[in-house]
């Protein structure tokens, strides 16, 4: 009987401890990662709305973001092996372009809401391109693997970037937005 109680006590203690630790981590993540970026995005959006730069950028992006061909072109440009490692860090560029598209063209109804799905892939073919050597090192790759792997991933993105947009475009009609 005693053993049983000890077991239950330990189990409950473990679960409660894990939950409490999880809450602590969640608050840390919000304070360290999420709130600073929200402040940054809020500043960018505020300036864009107030100065009218937003309309200007929206006009520039509208032909690219509003059609399949435009999104394919956008994804190929971002995936160019000379550009993709530069556009990668912190996904800052993807986050800004995404916010611009979302808060102007999509929010205003200038491009159909369904285009959000292919757009999510079109703004992101460079994901992780700045991080390939580190990522491979985390996987304990040999130096030779890194030498081959970096160009392999970069060139692969030229193909799979637009392919991702195309696949998302095919699934687009399944979204319930009209």
């Amino acid at each position, binding site marked *: 009987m005693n053993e049983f109680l000890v077991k239950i006590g330990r189990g409950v203690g473990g*679960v409660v401890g894990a939950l409490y*630790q999880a*809450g602590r981590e969640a608050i840390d993540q919000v304070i360290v990662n999420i709130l600073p970026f929200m402040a940054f995005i809020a500043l960018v*959006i505020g300036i864009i709305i107030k100065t009218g730069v937003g309309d200007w950028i929206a006009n520039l992006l509208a032909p690219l973001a509003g059609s399949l061909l435009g999104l394919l072109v956008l994804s190929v440009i971002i995936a160019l092996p000379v550009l993709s490692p530069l556009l990668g860090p912190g996904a800052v560029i993807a986050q800004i372009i995404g916010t611009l598209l979302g808060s102007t063209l999509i929010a205003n109804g200038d491009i159909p809401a369904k285009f959000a799905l292919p757009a*999510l892939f079109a703004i992101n073919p460079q994901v992780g391109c700045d991080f390939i050597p580190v990522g491979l090192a985390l996987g304990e790759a040999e130096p*030779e693997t890194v030498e081959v792997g970096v160009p*392999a991933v970069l060139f692969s993105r030229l193909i*799979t970037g637009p392919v991702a947009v195309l696949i998302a475009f095919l699934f687009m009609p399944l*979204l319930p937005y009209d």
Partner: protein
Amino acid sequence: MDALVVAAEWFIGLFKTGGDVFLSLVGGIIPLLIVLLTGVNALVALIGPERIDKVGEWAARDGIIYYPIRYILLPFLAVFFLTNPMAYTMGRFLPEKYKPAFYDSAVSYVHPPLGIFPHINPGELFVWLGIATGIETLGLSVVPLAVWYLLVGLIVIFIRGIVTERITAIMWSRREAK
């Protein structure tokens, strides 16, 4: 003098708009996010991330039936349990020839699940949130978009893994021929 006041008002207005945006982001997103992050963090801690090591060993095998394990199941479990950037350490279970493709596949999956599992990459939330905010402004639910982003992402990383594996193999044989 009047001109100065107008200029000052415009200047403050720039940040006031930003402040409103910040408030709506914090009020609309952070409460749900904190509770969700807590729940998922606890789940991951209770299940134990070391359990996915078995899948890593499994994914290392040759043969066509192991492709979906290597480029769908393993990247998904890796980013879900280990999150960005520790997910890439799962590459250590794979032979060198598969490491670049696995990295490509895993790193491409740190954004598609963000609508439902933001714990994977809270620092880069706006890759998803930027566009999702536009959908919300239109008064539509973002959940269908989140679900299809997650699902289409799985197809995309599968293709990405296969293509990068092929390109790595070609580049490797060329290198050896030299």
